[in-house]
């Protein structure tokens, strides 16, 4: 199986979110970046498991500048075989999907993984766009996947339930909780990662179809109104009369 995993960086889950340049840019000062958790825990690890079971190679691809190399090395340490970094600052999801599609065309991957969403821009966009650019089926929000021969049986989350389906390779899958368990790279993996190939390629031309105008932090919540634990009826009254939610 020839497997491709799309990864990207996101701010650490505990990062303080603030903006700069008249609130038009995310302020990266004092922010540490990590591999997007759904990419790492679910997409990458499941791809490595598939390779362990069926043989093949796992390639990771990312779109970004040199600072992403440490995140790519971590993916290699966890168990990917080689990596591609498209050397460009991502502008929007379409730009990113175009770069990945440009690489994937002609490589004939059997299976392409993404995380279900990034935890910064929460777009749920790259996987579906990539699938369309490559004219492949797309199974989104997958929480379980087994492969036999060239047929995958996948469960995906739908509102209030689960859908179970089969699809033949090649296809694009977006992975979420349930697909795999997080793996911590061991020392041997970290050592080996240094020698694994990381190819840097230049971007293809792609339009940016959306632009960010301005960011805004939500208004500070008013401080909490505490209710006497002996008198929950007061809470019911407040929810009904003041908040008007019940």
């Amino acid at each position: 199986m020839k497997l491709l995993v799309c990864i990207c960086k996101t701010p650490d889950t505990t990062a303080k979110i603030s903006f700069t340049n008249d609130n038009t840019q995310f302020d990266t000062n004092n922010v540490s970046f990590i591999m997007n958790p759904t990419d790492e825990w679910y997409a990458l690890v499941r791809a490595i498991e598939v390779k362990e079971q069926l043989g093949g190679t796992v390639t990771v691809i990312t779109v970004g500048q040199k600072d992403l190399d440490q995140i790519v090395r971590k993916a290699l340490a966890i168990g990917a075989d080689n990596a591609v970094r498209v050397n460009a600052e991502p502008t929007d999801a379409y730009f990113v999907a175009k770069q990945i599609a440009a690489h994937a065309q002609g490589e004939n991957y059997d299976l392409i993984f993404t995380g279900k969403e990034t935890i910064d821009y929460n777009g749920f966009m790259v996987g579906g766009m990539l699938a369309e650019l490559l004219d492949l089926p797309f199974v989104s929000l997958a929480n379980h996947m087994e492969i036999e021969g060239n047929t995958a049986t996948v469960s995906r989350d739908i509102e209030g339930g689960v859908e179970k389906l089969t699809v033949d390779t090649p296809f694009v899958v977006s992975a979420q909780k349930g697909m795999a368990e997080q793996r911590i790279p061991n020392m041997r993996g970290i050592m080996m990662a240094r020698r694994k190939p990381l190819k840097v390629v230049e971007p293809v031309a792609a339009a940016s179809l959306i632009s960010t105008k301005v960011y805004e932090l939500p208004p500070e919540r008013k401080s909490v109104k505490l209710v006497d634990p002996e008198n929950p009826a007061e809470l019911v009254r407040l929810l009904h009369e003041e908040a008007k939610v019940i």
Partner: protein
Amino acid sequence: MSVLVYVDHIKGTVKKGTYEAVNYAAKVAESLGGKEVIALALGTTNNDSLAALGTYGASKVLTVNDAAFDTFDSRPIAKVIAEAASANAAEVVVFSHNSSGKALAPRVAVRLEAGLITGASSVPSGDDFTVRRSVFSGKAFADYTINSAIKVLSVNPNSFPLEEGEGTASVEAFSTSVGAGDFKVKVLEVSRSTDTVPLPEAELVVSAGRGLKGPENWGMVEDLATILGATTACSRPVADVGWRPHHEHVGQTGVTVQPNLYIAIGISGAIQHLAGVNNSKVIVVINKDPEAPFFKAADYGIVGDAFEVVPKLIEALKEFKNS
């Protein structure tokens, strides 16, 4: 010129998110100077419930009455949507930001070379078509503009109150080049709990965490949810140890909710959990630890032992419901 909306339905029963999307499309159409709102419903549907989309703002519903479309496969479905968009000169295509919309909207955007904004929480405004959405897992908002002629938007569930008016939509068949042979995804089974509103769409959510000490203590959480008509949820540690099913896990790596009311019982309020609930309109926290960080994000709080407070709260709600 038109605004096209994708109708998401379960065996002909239109989903609430679709009503929201039709409402939204009507507002978009109005802001563009009164375009026609056309809905597209695929598979086995029911003409009466489609005609009723008129009350939410659609003037016409296009149908493809082919049972092949009764199961979900984003590739052929996106093709039909793009065909309908082109045939009706759609300037904007609208989806609900749910499990179907998340798979379809990106595909349709690529087919139409359209800019896409997912999870929109505002109606487009201004000449530059500015749309707001939540980013950084609810820790901020971003205003985006779309640079392309055709635009694709998906509407965040439960972000707009439903508005019903007068009117009946006409229902017409749409002829497509896409058919059963284009389906590559074979759906084996769909299991859905039918008795409660799914978490992402829920208006009221009762959630509990490790403070409940064990799965055997969830009875009172379920009782509270039942009396409110709320959906139950949980924190990550609780799902991880198997006290509750994974689909109830709310947070950064779980489900994101945007209810009118979120009641958190025995959840400390780790930042990853808050990321999933930041868009709730009102948050109530019940926790015995007054230092629990969740109180900083709450509108109302009770510092007390959940095992004492929750039964009293249930009694108080019973009285309220009976009065």
